[in-house]
């Protein structure tokens, strides 16, 4: 079980020498307890203390690196069951599976796609992570050739899927130095698989259905000297996966079963609910996911969900305050003020774009709070609006002096008018109605004047 900081402190030399980088032994102990420091940083620990601490202070889920170079990724080192307790750190790698019996062109096409395809969202490029080659042909030679073809196209992380040691050996000739993930060691072949993994320094998937069986297999493989392990609980249904992956995560982070302290593998192909398997894997602790080459719709949705779930939930995503253009607004275009909570921004922007009325969005700094919360917390004030109008030069951008404010900010309308000298129009509370509002209120108003 996990040691508390004070228990750890008792084992430390209590010299406060600072050589570990921490000011005192107690602060170092607190870091160790949180899994945030390495025991080896302390030069004065005796061997016995090291052994005790080593087992309980390493991160509860081992970090495993797959691939080399720019596209390599690391998984594991997670600490919580719920992202709101802290955050999830290492997004699952998603790799497209292809059989070695596929035509060369198809293998090349999938590899090229994973190499170059990227969706840009909120300033990040979202990409799939690599290729999983399956030894569907059963032939070692065909398997090795498929891997060679892929390696000639791109340096992507690979998963090598075969029950056959000879096929894996042949494939590893082409990619053995690039840390591919080997799938999989089972109760019957683990000795050979461990020796392959050790020989090439590759991470290894252990596959067993049932956590007791998985735990046994981990014991056997670590005894064989395999270190970088990934666990495949071989789920037979979505329910089977959520049960086993939740149990693995909980037993690992509470250190109830150190053997289960490794990242989880999930093959989402097969049972006809692939999108569901992918979504479930993303929210429920999968670390390496092997999928079929997804169509555009599933590809975008899954990468977006992964981005959402691996965003720190404590941090409101903020937009930079400023004046944003929708379309090509001219001097008569409406100006809509709102807050810099990114969700508010993107929602409003979407509806404005579909209204086809060019306009300006004046984004003020409410520290990422939504309109409702900002009004309630007093973060949205008339002076903030006044200063933003000046700072972002709104008066030179438009000829009129009318400002549309969110419906929820209506209590501030009088004060904003006084502070800015602008006429305030209270818009709808629901962004979905903004197009209607602009057509009705703004366009008609323009006609009247």
């Amino acid at each position, binding site marked *: 079980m996990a040691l508390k900081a004070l228990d750890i402190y008792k084992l430390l030399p209590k010299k406060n020498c600072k050589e570990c980088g921490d000011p005192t032994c107690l602060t170092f102990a607190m870091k160790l307890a949180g899994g945030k420091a390495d025991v080896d940083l302390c030069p004065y620990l005796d061997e016995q203390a090291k052994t005790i601490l080593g087992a309980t202070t390493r991160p509860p889920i081992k970090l495993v690196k797959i691939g080399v170079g720019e596209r390599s990724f690391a998984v594991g080192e997670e600490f919580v069951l*719920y*992202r*709101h307790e802290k955050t999830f750190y290492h997004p699952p790698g998603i790799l497209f599976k292809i059989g070695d019996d596929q035509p060369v062109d198809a293998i090349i096409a999938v590899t090229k796609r994973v190499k170059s395809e990227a969706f840009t*969202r*909120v300033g990040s490029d979202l990409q799939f992570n690599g290729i999983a080659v399956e030894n569907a042909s059963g032939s070692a030679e065909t398997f090795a050739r498929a891997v060679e073809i892929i390696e000639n196209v791109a340096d992507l992380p690979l998963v090598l899927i075969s029950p056959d040691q000879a096929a894996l050996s042949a494939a590893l000739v082409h990619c053995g130095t690039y840390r591919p993930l080997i799938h999989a060691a089972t109760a019957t072949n683990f000795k050979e698989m461990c020796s392959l993994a050790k020989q090439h320094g590759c991470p290894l998937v252990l596959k067993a*259905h*049932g*956590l*007791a069986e998985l*735990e046994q297999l981990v014991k056997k493989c670590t005894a064989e000297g395999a270190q970088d392990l990934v666990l495949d609980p071989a789920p*037979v*249904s*979505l*329910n*089977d996966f*959520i*049960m086993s992956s*939740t*149990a693995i995560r*909980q*037993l690992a982070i509470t250190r109830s*079963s150190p053997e*289960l302290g490794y990242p989880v593998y999930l093959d989402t192909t097969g*049972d*006809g*609910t692939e*999108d*569901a398997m992918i*979504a*479930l894997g*993303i*929210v*429920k602790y999968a670390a390496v996911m092997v999928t079929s080459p997804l*169509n*555009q*719709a*599933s590809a*975008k*949705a899954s990468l*977006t*969900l992964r*981005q*959402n*779930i691996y965003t720190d*939930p404590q941090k409101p995503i903020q937009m930079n305050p400023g004046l944003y253009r929708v379309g090509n607004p001219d001097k008569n275009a409406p100006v809509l003020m709102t807050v810099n909570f990114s*969700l508010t921004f*993107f*929602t409003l922007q*979407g*509806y404005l*774009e*579909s209204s086809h009325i060019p306009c300006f969005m004046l984004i003020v700094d409410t520290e990422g709070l*939504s309109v*409702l*919360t900002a009004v309630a917390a007093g973060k949205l004030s008339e002076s903030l609006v006044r200063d933003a109008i000046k700072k972002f030069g709104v008066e030179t951008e438009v000829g009129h002096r009318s400002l549309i404010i969110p419906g929820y900010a209506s209590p501030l309308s009088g004060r904003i008018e006084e502070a800015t000298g602008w006429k305030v129009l209270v818009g709808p509370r629901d*962004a*979905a*109605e903004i197009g*209607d509002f602009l057509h*009705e209120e703004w366009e008609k108003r323009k006609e009247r004047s």
Partner: protein
Amino acid sequence: MGLDVHFDWTGSIGEVVLGATKSDGGSRKISYRIGGGTTLPFLDADSPAPSPLIAFEVCDNPQFWSPIVRKYCGDITNNTPEWVHAAEASYGADLIRLYLTSTRQRNFTDVSSVGKTVEEVLSATDLPLIIEGSNEPKIDSDVFQKCGETGQGEKLLLGTAEASRYRSIAAAALAYDHSIIAQSPIDVNLAKQLNILLREIGIQRDHIVIDPYTGSLGYGFEYSYSAMERIRFSALKGDVDLAMPMICSAIDTLTVKEVRESELQIQDEIAVRWEFYTGFAAAVAGAEIICVRHPATIMMLRKAFGSLKSQDRTRMVM
């Protein structure tokens, strides 16, 4: 030591009944009891909960409804009863959520038409009904009163109460024994606060469904997902003011950029995926009513829930 999850939950999710059959004084062919969970969603191997319900959303004035849905469903979107019938008979929904968008026109006053619409919808389907009333405080009272009265005995779910605006809807729910949706902006504390306000004016806990507000995938879902997890977690830890079932309705899904601006050939596919990923992940976080607007999302969710639901473990053959 058993290799299984272990939680020391002290609370459970309260139950809410939706819809009334003839024997209960209504006219629905089925009624649902949602809630009752005693652990995290889908980890209830010992006493498997039923699958989450899938609600199909329709409206009585499709002018501002997603063009993707209007195109897919065709002309029946202009005939609310026919559309509702299709939702039950062809699309396979568990329940219907009717948005009275007609009341959102400017200067709307014709409250009697609301009663007529609700009546027609009740006769067009045998499924339990969720009704979304007006969006305008001035007519709230009349609209909700009319909905409540017309649906008397049917155990409707009325929406949507917010902290700044809940009295009219609560009055209608109390007078005619309906339940209500309580919406708060993605925050566990605000959700709790609203439930307390509702309790103080007499709404029983077993008449409240929490709507923590669902931002659509890529546009706020990262917050909604955790808000739902936290609500479920607090409920299981014993907070009775959060121990109500949740509803997920990502109403902006079909208008986000990725869907709205996608190539036409794959627009339905991407609309369905966007709804599916959002609704499915929300169910995993604890939502028990998943609302969708694209008919094709319904079967996809249903199939997934079939595999996600806890099975009787003794029947699982390895």
